[in-house]
Every structure is written in structure tokens, then in C-alpha cells.
């Protein structure tokens, strides 16, 4: 079947819905294509808040927020993006409130705000109340509110359509191919503008806060087609994953006064970040936790985790402001946070890198910022680059509203003056062939086994701490896994809801984004933000104050180009907290 819409958005998470909504408000005919039902997307798992300098609790300024974002990103953040963001996120939060988002309130009726990692007042002097929140389900409320608005605006949804191809010809984006899960049928989508908002790829790692469905599909599809992926070496591990599952426990828990302790009961963050302690940015806290465990001060029989202590907080703060994470701890571990500290360890959480874009979400294909007409990206799938080498907590939710809105507006305006491109059944060919090859294969390799090997090896060789030696090992492992991937076979030969086929396709994407990540990490011989090379422990602004653009040449072979960091207001300085 064939469909036609002026603007087609891939992904129904926060970024996708914000894009769709603002494109529709511009008057465009908009459709959203998602492999999930709306409201199933992982924006709903975001907990703690959305940071904006509203100044409702105490003095705050967008300049402070911009500074924190740039410093938090270890100066790899593009400062034009950070400025646009810190200003516009204030308006974005107000607009969300106007749409009906049920923010928690202060006694004076204004939106309540809490402290969060790396968000400070007066250029780093002390933590500031900046994160606007709805209990510890802020992401859930953003997702619900944006979907409600999409229902109100009658936006068309293609639910459970798995995108298998982006049609790029003559340097122009022309349409999409997607597999309808219910029927197994391939559909052709003709569009004037396409916006990629399909989220991240935490499932390359064994321990992750990410949904099973976060597999980097669209990043991989574009990467295979020769478009670059930017700054893929920067992958964030969130410090407080519920041990051993990796389920997210919000940084808001520390914002409300929670403390990390080692086996000696020591508040170890005092040693690593004397000024803001437990509210240091995530890369620092995750490394500190790994070091505590490595040096023998881990907790439990295996001494392999640390503890998040909330027991000194008033019970009503825990029950009212952190109800969901309290429940997670009780259900999955049988640990009551009111009475005993909660076992935690870092969990793979967020890709700072992704599809490079301009400030308006236009996808670019090289260091000269040449755009691909008709192709946009927003949210975690994109790299604008707001987060630089390390994202601050709450800035992902801000990012998806601010840059989703920009992408939606620009895509709608672009579509007004653009024409549809001719598409034929032949455009389904590549997807059909790939699917048939998997369905008809009699190979001996199994998807689940290969995926488990990938996830374990990425954890061992390319997670919080890295060395050249381990990364080289992972380069070889990935080559071997990619080769074995050609020989996978599946049991399900049917058409309806062939979720095994979907998992097989997703594994292919996981391998591609892993390749881009590992090669980029091996290539960058410095430590910056979330990229910590033990063999190159220092930040090297002389050689590496630049963005990586990774291009696939063939399996196991990646070419690099570099894009300068947009500097400005804030000179790169040593990063201490």
C-alpha cells in the first residue's frame, strides 16, 4: 500500500509527538509512523523533571542553565545550540503547562522545581531548583500530554509500523518503507519532509535503563546509506540503575537529598566533587561508583554495587515526590527505600551522539553543514549538539520539546514549497529482499544468542571506562558478529505480528550503531565527558575540541571527518565540581 503526507515523523515518543504537533499547527498534513503504539515510547520512563530557568523557587537565569549545559557537556556542546535551548526551554515548559501538563505546584500556585545533577546557580557555586516536575513521572506526563494534543489535532498515526528504509536519491529524502506488523505487508510512504525521532539504542549494552525496543533503527539505516553519525563515542551511563536490573532510579532522588554510600557507609562523592557532591553530573558519578567498586569498597556479597540512601528523608517526601521509584525498589528487589538503602550501579541510559543536525533539525551530511533536503531529526536520535560529551539530567526532556518544535516548524514550512517525489514499487525492493533473506535463511545462528554476546561484550569493552586495547578487541568482536549475523535464521515464517523478524532486523541495527560507537571511541585519544580512556586520561583541547563524524565504509571499516565545536560565551576550562 502507498500513503502520502506532507510531513512524516518516525517515532511517537516525546520528540516525535512534539514535532508532529508543531508541524500540524503550521498547517501541514502530518502523519506519525511508529513501531509502537503511542504512549508506549520510552519518554514515558523519564522521571525527574524538565530543567528550565523559571526561577519559581529561587533566583535563576537562562545564562546559568546554558553555562551548566556547556560545562556539563565538557565543552563539546555547541554553544549556539545551548543558548537557543536555555532560552526556549522556558517557553516550552510554559506551553506544556498550557497544554494541560499536570506539573506539581508550589503553595503560590506556580510550577514546582527541584534540584538536579549539574544544575547550579551563580556559575557553579551551589545546586539550584531548576527541574520542573510531576512527581517522578515527568516523562510520562509529557508523553501523555503531547499525545493528547495530537488526538485533539487529529494527527494521523500509523501504529506498529516498523520503518525498514529511508528513500534517499539524488541527495534528497523522498519517502519511507515500513513493515506493518499486523499483516507483514510493506508500505510505501511518500513525503515532502521526513523527521527522524526514533530515540536511542541502549540495548547495545547488557545493563540498560532503555526499553527492549530502543535499538537505533534509523541511525543505522542512515549510517548504512553513507550518512554520518556524530559523536557516537559519547554514551551516558546513569549512576543509579536499580541493581542488577538497570531500571532507572531518578537523579531527583539525590535532588531531594538522597546520598550514595559505599560499603564503609562513606558518602564517597564528597571526595570526587566536594562542592556539589551527589549532584555532580552523571559521567563523574558513574566513574566514581566504578572506582569505589574497583577499589574494594563495593557492597553486597560480590562487592559489586553501591547504595542509594534515602532513609534519612521524611517518609512523605519519598512517598509523595518519588512514588514510582519507591515502588520499583519494593517490587523488583523487595527493598523498602524508607527503611533500607537501595542497591544501585550505573546503567546504560542515553546517546549524546546521533544523526547530526542544524539548529532547526535539518540533517547534515558533512563538516560544512550541507543539509539533506527534506530530512530532519530530533530528540535522542539526533545530535544537534546540545549535550556535547555528557548530557545533564532533565535536558533530554527539554531537548525533545525545544528541538522537536523547531524541526516540526521547519519541516512544515519546507513542505509548503516542496513537491512530492515519484516513488514506485521498486522502492520496496531492498526491504523485501532483506526480510525474505532472514525468513528463508537456514543458517545456524540465533538472534537472541548473538544479541547477548553483543550486549555482554559492549559492556566489558566499551562502557564507562575504556582503553585502546579493549576497544580494539571489540572492533574484532563486532566484525565477527556482523559476519555471523548474515547466517541468522528465525522460526517464525508467518506474516502477522512476526515479532521475531522484528528482533532480527533490530539486531542488525544494534550491530551498526555499536560499530560506529566503538570505532569512534577508539579513534578519540582523549578523555572528555562520558568518554573516559584510561590510556588517555586527560582532556586534549589542542587536538580534540571537535565533533566526530563517523561514516561507514564497509563492515568493520569506518572513515572519520571532524566538525569544529561552536564556541562563544564560555571558554573551555578545567571541569571541576
Amino acid at each position, binding site marked *: 500500500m502507498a500513503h502520502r503526507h506532507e510531513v512524516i515523523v518516525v517515532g511517537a515518543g516525546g520528540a516525535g509527538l512534539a514535532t508532529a504537533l508543531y508541524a500540524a499547527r503550521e498547517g501541514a498534513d502530518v502523519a506519525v509512523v511508529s513501531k509502537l503504539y503511542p*504512549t508506549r515510547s520510552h519518554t514515558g520512563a523519564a522521571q525527574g523533571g524538565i530543567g528550565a530557568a523559571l526561577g519559581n523557587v529561587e533566583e535563576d537565569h537562562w545564562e546559568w542553565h546554558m553555562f551548566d549545559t556547556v560545562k556539563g557537556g565538557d565543552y563539546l556542546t555547541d554553544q549556539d545550540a545551548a543558548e537557543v535551548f536555555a532560552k526556549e526551554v522556558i517557553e516550552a*515548559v*510554559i506551553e506544556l503547562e*498550557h497544554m*494541560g501538563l*499536570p506539573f506539581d505546584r508550589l503553595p503560590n500556585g506556580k510550577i514546582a522545581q527541584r534540584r538536579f545533577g549539574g544544575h547550579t546557580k551563580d556559575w557553579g557555586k551551589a545546586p539550584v531548583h531548576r527541574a520542573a516536575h510531576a512527581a517522578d513521572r515527568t516523562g510520562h506526563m509529557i508523553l501523555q500530554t503531547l499525545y493528547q494534543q495530537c488526538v485533539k489535532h487529529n494527527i494521523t498515526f500509523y501504529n506498529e509500523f516498523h520503518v525498514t528504509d529511508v528513500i534517499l536519491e539524488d541527495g534528497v529524502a523522498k519517502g519511507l518503507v515500513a513493515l506493518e506488523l499486523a499483516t507483514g505487508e510493506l508500505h510505501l510512504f511518500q513525503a515532502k519532509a521526513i523527521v527522524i525521532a526514533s530515540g536511542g539504542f541502549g540495548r547495545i549494552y547488557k545493563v540498560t535503563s532503555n526499553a*527492549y525496543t530502543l535499538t537505533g533503527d534509523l541511525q543505522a539505516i542512515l549510517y548504512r546509506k553513507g550518512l554520518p553519525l556524530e559523536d557516537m563515542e559519547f554514551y551516558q551511563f546513569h549512576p543509579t540503575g536499580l541493581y542488577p536490573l538497570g531500571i532507572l532510579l531518578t537523579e531527583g532522588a539525590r535532588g531531594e537529598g538522597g546520598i550514595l554510600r559505599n560499603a564503609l557507609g562513606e558518602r564517597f562523592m564528597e571526595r570526587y566533587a566536594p562542592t556539589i557532591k551527589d549532584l555532580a553530573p552523571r559521567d563523574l558519578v558513574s566513574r566514581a561508583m566504578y572506582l569505589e567498586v574497583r577499589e574494594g569498597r563495593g557492597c553486597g556479597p560480590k562487592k559489586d554495587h553501591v547504595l542509594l540512601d534515602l532513609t534519612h528523608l521524611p517518609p512523605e517526601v519519598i512517598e509523595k515526590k518519588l512514588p514510582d521509584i519507591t515502588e520499583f525498589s519494593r517490587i523488583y528487589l523487595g527493598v523498602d527505600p524508607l527503611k533500607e538503602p537501595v542497591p544501585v550501579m550505573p546503567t546504560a541510559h542515553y546517546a549524546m551522539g546521533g544523526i547530526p543536525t542544524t539548529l532547526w533539525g535539518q540533517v547534515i551530511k558533512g563538516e560544512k553543514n550541507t543539509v539533506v533536503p527534506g530530512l530532519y531529526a530530533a530528540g535522542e536520535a539526533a545530535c544537534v549538539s546540545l549535550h556535547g560529551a555528557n548530557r545533564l539530567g532533565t535536558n533530554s526532556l527539554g531537548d525533545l520539546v525545544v528541538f522537536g518544535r523547531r524541526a516540526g516548524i521547519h519541516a512544515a514550512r519546507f513542505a509548503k514549497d516542496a513537491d512530492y517525489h515519484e516513488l514506485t514499487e521498486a522502492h520496496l525492493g531492498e526491504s523485501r529482499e532483506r526480510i525474505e533473506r532472514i525468513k528463508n535463511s537456514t543458517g545456524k545462528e*540465533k538472534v537472541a544468542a548473538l544479541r547477548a554476546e553483543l550486549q555482554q561484550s559492549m559492556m566489558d569493552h566499551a562502557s564507562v571506562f575504556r582503553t585502546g586495547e579493549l576497544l580494539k578487541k571489540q572492533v574484532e568482536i563486532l566484525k565477527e558478529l556482523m559476519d555471523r549475523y548474515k547466517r541468522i535464521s528465525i522460526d*517464525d515464517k508467518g506474516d502477522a505480528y512476526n515479532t521475531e523478524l522484528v528482533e532480527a532486523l533490530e539486531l542488525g541495527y544494534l550491530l551498526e550503531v555499536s560499530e560506529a560507537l566503538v570505532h569512534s571511541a577508539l579513534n578519540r585519544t582523549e578523555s572528555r565527558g562520558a568518554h573516559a580512556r584510561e590510556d588517555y586520561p586527560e582532556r586534549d583541547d589542542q587536538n580534540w575540541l571537535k565533533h566526530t563524524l563517523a561514516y561507514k565504509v564497509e563492515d568493520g571499516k569506518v572513515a572519520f571527518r571532524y566538525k569544529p565545536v561552536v564556541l562563544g560565551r564560555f571558554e573551555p576550562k578545567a571541569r571541576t565540581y
Partner: protein
Amino acid sequence: MQVTLKILRFDPQKDQRPHWETYQVEAEPWDRVLDLLHKVKWDQDGTLAFRRSCGHGICGSDAMLINGKNRLACKTLVKDLGSVITVEPIRGLPVEKDLIVDMEPFFAAYRAVKPYLINDEPPPQRERLQSPEERERFDQGTKCILCASCTTSCPVFWVNGTYIGPAAIVQAHRFLFDSRDRGKRERFKALGSGSGVWRCRTAYNCTEACPREIPVTQLIEEVKRAILMDRF
């Protein structure tokens, strides 16, 4: 421990009607039912189909009938079920394949109550003000993850598929009791109609089924009262 997992299977391309399949699975007491389903799919039979995404009770994808009760597979642990576990699709919605049902009738009911803030007054420059008490008034409904556990546990919904069901009413409640909303009358059209709240027979199944511990029946009663108060 060894778990016997019985799953009600249905393949529309092969089967006339659903049938039970039994699997032996090695499990830990703290495993989620979702982990067991994955063990079957990944190690024994790749054709098993079910929905899942976040894996920790937030996305609402994996509501199933587990040992006779509606629950989320990712929020139900083996230790609370014992060594024989039965899993079936939620009831009252057409089964598409195995544990996957057609959610469209559910979302159609959701849309019928106009699940969005209705207020045409020009908004202020900054946020609208709302006291913590006003915010608390509709807090319960905001927890809803649209998993359909409540609606598909409702005996009225089973026999009358046109009933909008508890989940849609919870959504309506979330806006009716929001001090910022002005859409009462518009929503009452769907809620007060023959397929609306008056179908509810307060069986309390919905409240027991809700994985988010929303007092669903209570919210439905509050909506009924609001409609009655509006008539007088």
C-alpha cells in the same frame, strides 16, 4: 526453580481457535513473567508473539491475563505466582496473534471522552496558577498508562463492547477535576450516553486489576456524581 508455563496460543494463519501450549522454563523467584515469555521466545519457540517495551510497568504494553488476573507481565514476579503459571490475552478485545489483541476499540473509547485539556481562554504569559490542593484533586488519574487492564477485566465490557470502559472514564476524570479545564459539558455527552458511565455495575474488577493502584471504581463513581450534580 522449574516453572510450567501454559500459554494460550493463536496463529491467525494456521489456527481455527486458540489452544494451550505448555513450556518448561528454568526461572529465578525474582524473575518477571516477561522474562519467562522471553525465555520461551528466545530459547524454545520464536513464533510466540506478545507486546512489550519498557519492561518495568511504565509503558503499558504487556497487560495479560496471568493466573486468571489482569496484570502487567513485567510487573508480576514468579515468586508471587508459584511453579505453574498460565498466561492468556486480556479479554474483550479481538485476539490478533497469541497474546496480542486489537487495541483500536480501546483507543477509540479513549478518544471519545476528549482526553485533552479543553480551555479556550487566552492563556497568561506564564503558567496558569493551580494550588497544590487543586492539583492533588485529579492526581490519581494522571498515573494511568493506558494498559487496558481495567477495561478488559470489566464484566460489562465483556458482554457489551460499546461500553467505553473504566480506562476512558479515568481519563475523563483526570480532566473533569482539573481546575484548568472547561470541557465538562462536551465530555458529558459521551460519558452520559448509553455506552457511558451508567453501564458501570461497580464490580470493582477494574480497581483490583489496575497495576498503577488507581482507585478506578471510586473515580467512576465521582464522575457519575458529577454528571448528576450537573443535572440539578
